[in-house]
């Protein structure tokens, strides 16, 4: 067990990556000595902006690793933040809201699994259905004039929260933030180092080889897509119950689509996607801070389009190298005769 962890730590710390890591630390240190207030603010908002994107990207990763393309993440976020908000507002209880968000997210996952795994529908169209249904549902049932009792409070972790820089950036956050970050790390180890991960990857690459090894392709696909939906629900809860505290029509504002970009950018790897999301969060936070400090003025739209432009550029220049799970998008059917 310990041996596995040290080996994995080693594999993460391959030489080139170590150099990048040192460079990032160095840059932060320099920035911190020059202007500690702004540096902390930027770093903290990088996490705040980046985390929901990273969490939403995990939904995509879990689904695609198991062979289901999910462009319905946007719908999952919208549905779950809707239910999270209104259940919390009506019951005046955040926990009920959290439960509702997770359950409704899981329900969108179940719908996607039903359409793609059991009914073998075109997965892109199935995802589109999830999105359009979510828009219709949430905009029809939306009512004005509700508000939450509060939002999830920040928990300062004793000891860790006092560390300069890191304490303020990481250890004074809300509960969903902590859980989300831990989940991403757990997912990484689970995908690459557990039987579940091996089976999941096998299904995403070549489902019949898993099937002929006595693995129930159907069950794993359903499980993963529903869990992914539930985690997407948690992401929705984060947005409405921990970060913003309100809900509006079209609340998810394309984050589900950005998450797809981040998933690809992070090469279907949870840690890669987390880094990509934090990077995009950082770009946004930096631009905001520079505007607040009155140093430069980059129009918001250009910051907002950065993930999309970079994704297209990266895909265009790494053609053939960035390879998603080979069987993603194809319904699995046992070969006849």
């Amino acid at each position: 067990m310990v041996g596995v962890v040290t080996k994995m730590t080693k594999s993460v710390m391959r030489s080139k990556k170590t150099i990048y890591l040192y460079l990032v630390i160095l840059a932060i240190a320099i920035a911190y000595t020059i202007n500690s207030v702004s540096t902390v603010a930027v770093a903290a908002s990088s996490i705040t902006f980046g985390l929901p994107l990273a969490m939403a990207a995990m939904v995509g990763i879990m689904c695609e690793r198991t062979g289901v393309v999910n462009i319905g993440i946007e719908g999952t976020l919208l549905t779950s933040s809707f239910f999270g908000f209104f259940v919390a507002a009506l019951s005046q209880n955040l926990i009920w809201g959290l439960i509702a968000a997770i359950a409704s997210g899981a329900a969108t996952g179940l719908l996607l699994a039903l359409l793609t795994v059991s009914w073998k529908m075109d997965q892109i169209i199935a995802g589109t259905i999830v999105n359009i249904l979510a828009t219709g549902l949430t905009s029809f049932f939306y009512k004005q004039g509700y508000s939450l009792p509060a939002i999830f409070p920040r928990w300062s972790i004793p000891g860790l929260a006092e560390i300069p820089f890191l304490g303020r950036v990481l250890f004074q956050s809300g509960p969903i933030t902590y859980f989300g970050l831990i989940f991403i790390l757990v997912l990484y180890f689970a995908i690459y180092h557990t039987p579940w991960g091996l089976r999941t990857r096998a299904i995403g690459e070549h489902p019949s080889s898993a099937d002929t090894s006595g693995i129930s392709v159907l069950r794993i696909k359903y499980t993963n897509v529903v869990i992914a939906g539930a985690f997407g629900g948690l992401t929705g809860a984060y947005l409405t119950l921990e970060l913003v505290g309100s809900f509006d029509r079209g609340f998810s504002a394309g984050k589900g689509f950005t998450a797809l970009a981040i998933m690809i950018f992070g090469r279907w790897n949870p840690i890669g996607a987390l880094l990509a999301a934090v990077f995009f969060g950082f770009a946004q936070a930096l631009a905001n801070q520079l505007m607040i400090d009155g140093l430069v003025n980059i129009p918001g739209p250009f910051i907002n389009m950065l993930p999309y432009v970079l994704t297209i550029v990266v895909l265009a220049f790494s053609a053939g190298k960035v390879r998603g799970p080979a069987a993603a998008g194809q319904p699995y059917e046992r070969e006849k005769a």
Partner: protein
Amino acid sequence: MATLLQVKNLTKSFGSVIANNNISFEVNAGEIVALLGENGAGKSTLVKSVFGLLRPDQGEIYIDGKQMAPGDTAAVIASGVGMVHQHFQLVPVMSVTENIILGDEPKDGIFISIKKAEKKVRALSEKFGLAVDPTANIEDLPVGMQQRVEILKALSKDVRLLIFDEPTAVLTPQETDELILVIKNLAQLGVGVIVITHKLREVMALADRVVVLRDGKVVGTTTPKQSDEAGLAQMMVGRNVVLEVSKGAANPGQPVLSVKGLEVFDDRKLLAVKGVDLQVRSGEILGIAGVEGNGQRELVEAICGMRVRAKGEVLVGGMGTKDMHPHAVHEAGLSHIPEDREKHGLVSSYSIADNLILNRFDQQPFARGWFRNMSAIKKNADLLVKKFDIRTTSPAALASALSGGNKQKVVIARELSQDLQVLVAAQPTRGVDVGSIEFIHKQLIAARDGGAGVLLVSAELDEIISLSDRIAVMSGGIIVATIDNKNADRDYLGRLMAGLSA
């Protein structure tokens, strides 16, 4: 001997087709049973039902006297059954070890223990004398090695019954001999073995007992001692079969296809054709023998203009052709029966009529300028359906409704119904019933006698020997030898195919 597997009255149908009709048979421990039958006889369906990959409509399957629930692969594996699939069930981007442990992973806490797993793979590989590198990625291994991994994967779970589905399709004759030894060795250890094949020679060399299937039924059970190849063939097909193809002497003329110094990369950007020179003269059939995956596919695609030619040139009728312009190569007078008719040869959701003009849709008389000429397309279809005996209700029916043999007839009808100097036929009888095979062979010879130069690529050595006038053997991306058919000898060709110097 203990009865390992017992199949009782098994029936399975797909739509209106009965693939398995009331089949019963058994396998004892230490026994090698060959399931013999031609394409579509129901062999694969039968073993897939046994392995739990298909749910039979009726009938029972017992392993060690215990009845198996239909469609429960995991339970079948747990009772000691392994299967080596015709299309390898391996994940290309994963390592040998990961593939072998899939579904039964050795653990260290909640994590997979790769160390334990690799040890297990090494032990297996030693025990059965099948050497593999546990850390190699599947996609980097040659086909023969992949099959070894597939066999080890099947053996990794304490197997007592092992099923081989067409295991020799991708092997040289020598590799086949080695595999036969491996299988016999397993039987000595008490493993029951089922081998699916349509190759009579292998049945004779291998089997303790032969179960012959035809049209989904067991038509007979025999042993190699009680029967001979001709007898087995007759049981398999249900009538006297002419194993030899009758053809007159070739009357070769001018070269119509010349390939000079051709080099071609495969999809993984590796050099697959490493400098090939060949010539096909009008009125002759040049057969290319070789184990699949030795560059034949890339060679054919490059000749036909469908793949980039890294180096070298291809002349049709003495004129140079450009690569990556299949249209132009076709116009120069080259017809091409592609290896994979479902992938390249047909658009299955198009009508038979549209498929019969697929590569001439923009030429006279099927198009006038920008407009398609529906009446000419229909006339052409009526004619060809009759001439090539395509069994269909109507030329307007979709190609997907046809049987494999009739689909292939559509492709052949289209390719032979135009002015051609060269015919490139890649695996022209793959997955086709015996009746259609005879028809297709006659058509190829007729094309030759009509003055075309025919380049025949086939993985079936018998087909190459019986049809070709000259035989070129391809191995490792080069033509290792070109011989006259008079000197053809299986053993000699086999050694050449394996890349050994003769």
